[in-house]
């Protein structure tokens, strides 16, 4: 039974995509919407059925289906094979359910766009590719999904191709993810050379029994890490995600929040045994995750575009997941991935609705005071924001973040013989990140929804777009209960589901740890209220120029205090993030290669001209060669004959 359902799971969105592409002009917008939602809907239902079968069936193993042998050559055996075990079940559920909701929303959002057929074709193709990525039990088959999602993200970011900025953003996204893909490919090559086959099970088994030397393991893990970093827009490769906001909002929600960017996290979670044996790479992952977390939060703090704030917040939340992976608590990372998918999708969809209603205005300073105009959207946005900030007890975000914080606290990296890096400094950064997250998301909430009225809001959000928002709000608020920290009633449903073997409960966890985790978001909320929320806010940023703050009004005590405590560091922070060292580095290298290629082409052209010039030179010289030899004078010819004779005689007689 499962052998049929599993491939069907992937085939439905693929078939929907083909139908939509081939129909191109002939189907109406509504029909296209329904076909797409149907495709993804069927796969959602199938995934639920399969999950139930998996949970009720034998615990270990999971459903294994080999479709056909792909490459069977001496030295490599790779085939198209899907497995549904606990990790991929979680991902499949997230992808299909969130995907379905986003498709329903998009059916309403994109109804009047002429290119809707191309849009839904790419979206369903993306879901199919993501499912292939998640279900693949062969790393090479995973690579098909990996590049497939990259292609769909390129097509969707550059969806409105009239504006060259969109297409260049799409190309930039594809180039960066492609660099990561090449690194991942090199990792696969290394593993294939060492182990002969790319089945995940056999790779991990042969790595475990030492077929790969330690250095080999580190290099392979490093390659895979680089691939994941590029896909999830972490530190060196983060420039493409903010530009990716050029695509339609449902795309940003599905691809650049919920599913594609988390593919890197899923991959590392899938091969965590390999990473566990590569300690330095784990440490690197953790440090990079922490740095990205901090950098993402700070940059989001000074953004003025609503969707860019959410993009930077995605980068910072991914930083959390990488931090968790680095510290070995991959279950926490996956749990945070799930909850993040819910509330981030919610935030993006609501933002999309808000922007659509406010006449496509994306600058938060020009929106202002929409609380009264769209109460429903405000409620959804606040729900999402609180889940993102991780307000204690009431939101899912709190539980997943708490799980990560406790995991980070208990980790010890045995890097070199005597030098061990303990988890505490990373925990500190994570906590600061939580505070900053609350700060920037509530800044956005207060500026957009509270305060004096900005642009006039028109029209109503259609019912079709409303339903997904409601579902996502419920999920992001109550989705977290299935995994409680120990101090609260220790409920570990999720981690038990994921990995029944290793219990995650730390009995000796100090109580203040959970309290700190709960207080940080609240503190962030308070400070945000002080700075932006209350009627006479301290921070009055000039609309249009992000991060430029008007000087404090009068020298009165409280304002001077606030100014020195909050405004100065904020201004410093704004200046710092504008530096954007990695971004400049990447544009610098781009400019460098262009200059180099122009230089080399110039040299090549110069060479060719010089060659041509010399050729004409010799041609001219050869031109009057006949004058020298063939000048038509008989005596000259006779002289040549005599000369030839004498030369011959000389050579013969003398030699």
């Amino acid at each position, binding site marked *: 039974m499962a052998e049929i359902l599993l491939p069907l799971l992937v085939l439905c969105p693929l078939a929907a995509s083909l139908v939509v592409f081939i129909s191109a002009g002939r189907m109406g917008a509504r029909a296209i919407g329904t076909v797409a939602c149907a495709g993804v809907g069927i796969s959602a239902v199938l995934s639920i059925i399969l999950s139930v079968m998996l949970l009720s069936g034998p615990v270990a193993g999971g459903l294994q289906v080999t479709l056909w042998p792909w490459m069977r050559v001496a030295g490599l055996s790779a085939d198209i094979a899907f497995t549904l075990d606990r990790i991929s079940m979680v991902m499949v559920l997230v992808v299909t359910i969130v995907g379905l909701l986003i498709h329903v929303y998009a059916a309403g959002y994109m109804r009047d766009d002429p290119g809707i057929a191309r849009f839904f074709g790419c979206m369903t193709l993306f879901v199919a590719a993501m499912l292939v990525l998640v279900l693949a039990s062969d790393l090479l088959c995973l690579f098909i999904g990996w590049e497939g999602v990259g292609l769909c993200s390129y097509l969707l970011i550059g969806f409105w191709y009239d504006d060259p900025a969109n297409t260049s953003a799409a190309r930039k996204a594809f180039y960066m993810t492609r660099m990561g893909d090449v690194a991942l490919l090199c990792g696969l090559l290394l593993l294939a050379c060492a182990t002969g086959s790319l089945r995940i099970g056999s790779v991990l088994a042969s790595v475990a029994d030492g077929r790969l030397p330690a250095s080999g393991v580190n290099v392979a893990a490093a390659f895979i890490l680089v691939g994941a970093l590029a896909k999830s827009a972490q530190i060196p490769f983060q420039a493409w995600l903010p530009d990716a906001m050029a695509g339609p909002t449902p795309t940003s929600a599905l691809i650049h929040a919920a599913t594609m960017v988390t593919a890197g996290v899923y991959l590392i979670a899938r091969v965590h045994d390999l990473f566990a044996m590569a300690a330095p790479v784990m440490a690197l992952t953790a440090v990079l995750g922490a740095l990205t977390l901090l950098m993402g939060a700070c940059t989001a703090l000074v953004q003025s575009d609503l969707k860019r704030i959410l993009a930077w917040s995605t980068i910072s939340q991914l930083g959390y997941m990488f931090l968790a992976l680095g510290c070995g608590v991959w279950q926490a990372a996956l749990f945070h991935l799930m909850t993040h998918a819910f509330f981030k999708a919610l935030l993006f969809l609501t933002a999309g609705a808000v922007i659509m209603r406010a006449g496509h205005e994306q600058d938060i300073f020009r929106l202002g005071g929409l609380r009264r105009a769209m109460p429903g959207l405000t409620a959804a946005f606040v729900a999402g924001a609180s889940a993102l900030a991780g307000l204690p007890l009431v939101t899912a975000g709190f539980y997943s973040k708490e799980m990560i914080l406790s995991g980070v606290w208990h980790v010890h990296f045995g890097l070199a013989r005597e030098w061990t890096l303990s988890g505490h400094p990373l925990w500190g950064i994570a906590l600061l990140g939580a505070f900053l997250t609350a700060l920037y998301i509530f800044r956005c909430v207060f500026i957009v929804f509270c305060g004096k009225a900005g642009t006039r809001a028109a029209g109503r959000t259609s019912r079709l777009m409303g339903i997904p928002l409601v579902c996502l709000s419920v999920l992001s608020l109550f989705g977290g209960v299935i995994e409680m920290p120990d101090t609260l009633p220790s409920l570990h449903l999720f981690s038990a589901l994921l990995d029944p073997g290793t219990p995650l409960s730390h009995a000796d966890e100090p109580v203040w740890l959970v309290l700190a985790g709960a207080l940080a978001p609240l503190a962030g909320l308070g400070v945000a209220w002080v700075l932006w929320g209350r009627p006479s806010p301290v921070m009055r940023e000039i609309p249009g120029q992000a991060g430029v703050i008007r000087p404090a009004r009068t020298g009165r005590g409280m304002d001077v205090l606030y100014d020195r405590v909050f405004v100065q560091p904020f201004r410093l922070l704004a200046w710092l993030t504008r530096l954007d060292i990695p971004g400049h580095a990447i544009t610098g290298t781009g400019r460098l290669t262009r200059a180099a290629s122009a230089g080399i082409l110039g040299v090549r052209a110069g060479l060719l001209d010089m060659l041509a010039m010399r050729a004409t030179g010799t041609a001219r010289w050869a031109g009057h060669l*006949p*004058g020298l030899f*063939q*000048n*038509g*004078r*008989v*005596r000259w010819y*006779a*002289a040549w004959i*005599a000369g030839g004779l004498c030369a011959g005689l000389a050579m013969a007689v003398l030699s």
Partner: protein
Amino acid sequence: MLAFSFNDTLLVATVLFSIGLAGVLVRRNMVFMLMSLDIMLNAAALVFVGAGARWHDATGQVMFVLILALAAVETAVGLAIIVCLHARGRPTLDADTGNLLRG
């Protein structure tokens, strides 16, 4: 027995030959070139006569007569061509002027 050995005739013939060759190279007048051509042919004939004498063989003499005949043919055809050139608009006898065929 023989007053001159083969080498001496060879020496004279070579000198004669180089005189003829020099004549062809130096003189510009076509008639003189024909004359020096004749000298070269006679030098060759002299070698044959000397060789014939050395080998006491009549072939040398036969070849000499043959070469005389050839020289006569050369000169006759040469003069005929010079006359035609003169008739067809190339008055001077200079070998180097009015070259149409070159390059």
